[in-house]
């Protein structure tokens, strides 16, 4: 055991205590944190420049113009601006369960709302007989920031009333200056569209406000009702399990990848025979796996801490319990052993990294599957599909992390069951890979294929 720990300590030190690793593992997350906590607020508080200019409109029907004029009045503009800000605030607030929005969140929402462009637009009514092509000319001069004519709206003659009822209604064209804020052009489309809508209703002899009220149904957020009570399912909840899964996936893959490269390195620079004169292949493999597990665990804890910090800031910690965090570590260890033992065997079997690629395909498949399965599992975390996959190593640990952190955690018995199955899986995997590891380490020459590996397992 002492030798195993000695090998593990060297493995950890030679991987985690290097400049490259520290840069990759610490500096990159720091930069990411900097991005989230420093750069994003700065970007958010940066106010959009004020936009002022004229909007030209040609209305051959004469029925649309009054509504557009009404909508473009300063009071109406201000009202829409406020409504938009309110929407942004609501959207920002929605990320947290209702009633949990913090001061900082409200503050951020307000800041985000402030980035909406302030407008000072005047409407320029053109003669219906005017030449549209000529009226486009002012748009060609300069950009939206220079002011002047910002947009040209041309309503179709048959937009409100059609001479032939079998033909569809006409619509309108919107020509804009380059670099016009998309929120302004979007606003114009809405305003004119609604004006045409109202004009058609009026032309049909109905009251637009009445018809509008008839056609509007508000869409409620779904509320999950379970024996634990009721809760509103926020959109963030689908991403949280994914985040957890990605966290263990990254840690497992980093540890596994390092294990692969250090094993290949030991083999290719021929130190391995010297080492084998001091420790048994099993001790070497165990030591190496444990050492790299330390590396993966260090990453898991660090990225986990960063993630936890962000959750606290966005007050999203409600769905995360200590048990979930603990299970995350347990499933990490299981997933790591499954993947790492394969990596060690591959590393021992090949002569260089290039040869490892072809044998890596099954491992890569295992690591890709959970990403592909994320959506189906999140949609139905307790369906047969998810339940079966949750008990099937080697992807079981990843699936279980997805399920445990979803809105509908699996029945309690499935957690110990999956852990037990994975422990058995780890045991079998270690037995098989240890044989390949032992035989492969001293085999040089032609890279083995899958059938050679099977032969080695039988041979050892």
């Amino acid at each position, binding site marked *: 055991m002492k*030798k195993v720990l*000695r*090998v593990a300590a*060297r493995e950890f030190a*030679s991987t985690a205590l*290097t400049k490259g690793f520290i840069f990759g593992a610490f500096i990159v997350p720091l930069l990411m944190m900097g991005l989230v906590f420093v750069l994003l607020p700065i970007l958010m508080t940066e106010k959009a420049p004020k936009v002022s200019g004229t909007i030209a409109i040609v209305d051959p029907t004469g029925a649309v113009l009054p509504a557009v004029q009404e909508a473009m009045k300063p009071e109406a503009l201000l009202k829409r601006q406020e409504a938009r800000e309110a929407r942004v605030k609501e959207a920002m607030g929605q990320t947290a369960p209702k009633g949990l929005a913090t001061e900082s969140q409200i503050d951020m929402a307000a800041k985000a709302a402030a980035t909406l462009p302030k407008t000072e637009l005047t409407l320029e009514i053109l003669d219906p007989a005017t030449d549209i092509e000529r009226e486009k000319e002012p748009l060609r001069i300069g950009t939206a920031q220079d002011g002047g004519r910002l947009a040209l709206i041309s309503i179709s003659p048959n937009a409100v009333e059609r001479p032939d009822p079998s033909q569809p209604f006409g619509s309108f064209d919107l020509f804009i200056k380059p670099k016009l804020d998309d929120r302004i052009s979007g606003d114009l489309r809405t305003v004119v569209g609604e004006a045409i809508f109202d004009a058609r209703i009026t032309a049909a002899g109905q009251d637009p406000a009445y018809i509008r009220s008839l056609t509007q149904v508000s869409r409620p957020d779904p509320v999950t009702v379970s024996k634990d009570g009721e809760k509103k399912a926020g959109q963030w909840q689908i991403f949280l399990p994914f985040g957890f899964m990605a966290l263990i996936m990254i840690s497992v893959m980093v540890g596994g990848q390092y294990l692969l490269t250090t094993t290949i*390195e*030991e083999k290719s*620079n*021929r*130190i*391995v*025979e*010297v*080492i*084998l*004169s*001091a*420790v*048994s292949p099993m001790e070497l493999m165990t030591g190496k796996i444990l050492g790299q597990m330390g590396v993966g665990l260090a990453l898991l804890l660090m990225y986990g801490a960063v993630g936890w910090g962000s959750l606290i800031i966005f007050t999203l910690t409600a769905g995360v319990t200590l048990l979930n965090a603990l299970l995350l570590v347990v499933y990490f260890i299981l997933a790591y052993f499954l993947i790492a033992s394969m990596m060690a065997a591959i590393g021992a079997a090949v002569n260089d990294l290039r040869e490892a690629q072809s044998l890596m395909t099954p491992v890569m498949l295992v690591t890709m599957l959970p990403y592909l399965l994320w959506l189906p599992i999140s949609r139905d975390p307790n369906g047969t599909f998810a339940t079966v996959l949750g008990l099937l190593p080697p992807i079981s640990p990843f699936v279980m992390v997805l399920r445990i952190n979803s809105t509908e955690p699996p029945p309690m018995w499935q957690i110990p069951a999956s852990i037990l199955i994975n422990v058995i899986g780890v045991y079998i995997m270690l037995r098989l890979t240890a044989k390949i590891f032992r035989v492969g380490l*001293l085999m040089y020459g032609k890279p083995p294929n899958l059938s050679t590996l099977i032969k080695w397992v039988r041979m050892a």
Partner: protein
Amino acid sequence: MGDAITLSGLRKSFGPKIAVEGMDLRVGKGELVGFIGPNGAGKTTTIRMIMSIIFPDTGTISVLDRPSAVESKDRIGYLPEERGLYRKMKVGAFLCHMAQLKGASPDGLKQKVYKWLERVDLAKCYKLKCEELSKGMQQKVQFLSAIMHDPDLLILDEPFSGLDPVNMRMMRDLFLEQHTLGRTIIFSTHQMHQAEQLCDRIVMINKGQKVLDSTLAEIRSDYDPRTILVEPLDEADASQLHALPWVREVADRDGILEIGIHDDTPPRDAIQRIVAMMPVAKIELRRPTLEDIFVEIVQGEGQSAQEVRESLRSGIAAEEVES
């Protein structure tokens, strides 16, 4: 005194190729034994089996009174033929790591490592990375890693290959010093003259089988000289010698004739007859080298002398290219 190593009936095959067969060997404690034989003879396979790095198909092994080297790993120092270093590790740290893997106590280990590095003129390299050392320096570090934990048994596979003469001498001194300390040493080489210079006892291996196992003194008395070197005073006619019934073979090496004589002719008579036949500048009875003996033994197994010598030389040539 018991045996350090006992091998009996070892056999190992890799697929259809039989690497070692019928290997019996006893190495007494404190002995210095050389394994010699051409490349691919089975020396490394035998050594790896002694080390329990690979396992024999049949046969038994006892190392330092244990049934397997696994149980006495910490008392063995091993320098494999395929040896490497952790390239990114510092020399001092590497030696400490290896010694601790071999069960050495960490107390005073650093000082010990430093002292040894000083002895091989590498004290300045303590904090250098292994990859920064030259090949010869790396080899010294590798040798140190095999002896750092004061093993009772040293197994060295081609320990001197690729060394320059100065380092070769230094390593040889260290090597002999280990012997005088009473440690059992087995080393393999395909350079027979090295074995001749260093060993008490020679084990010759060819095609996976032991073909000779004797002390150097026994070998010398068993294989009496059968080659006479003649430097003729004038241009000599070698064909005249070929015709003689007691001459086995004649080879002309840059004007020096190597005359092999038949076993039933005493060398004394042969010399007299040659001198009577032609004026000679120099005549000498050559002791058989290990190579000659090896050639003689192997010849009986269907290989011609020329083939055997070539297979030996190809190993040497390959090594020279390497170094």
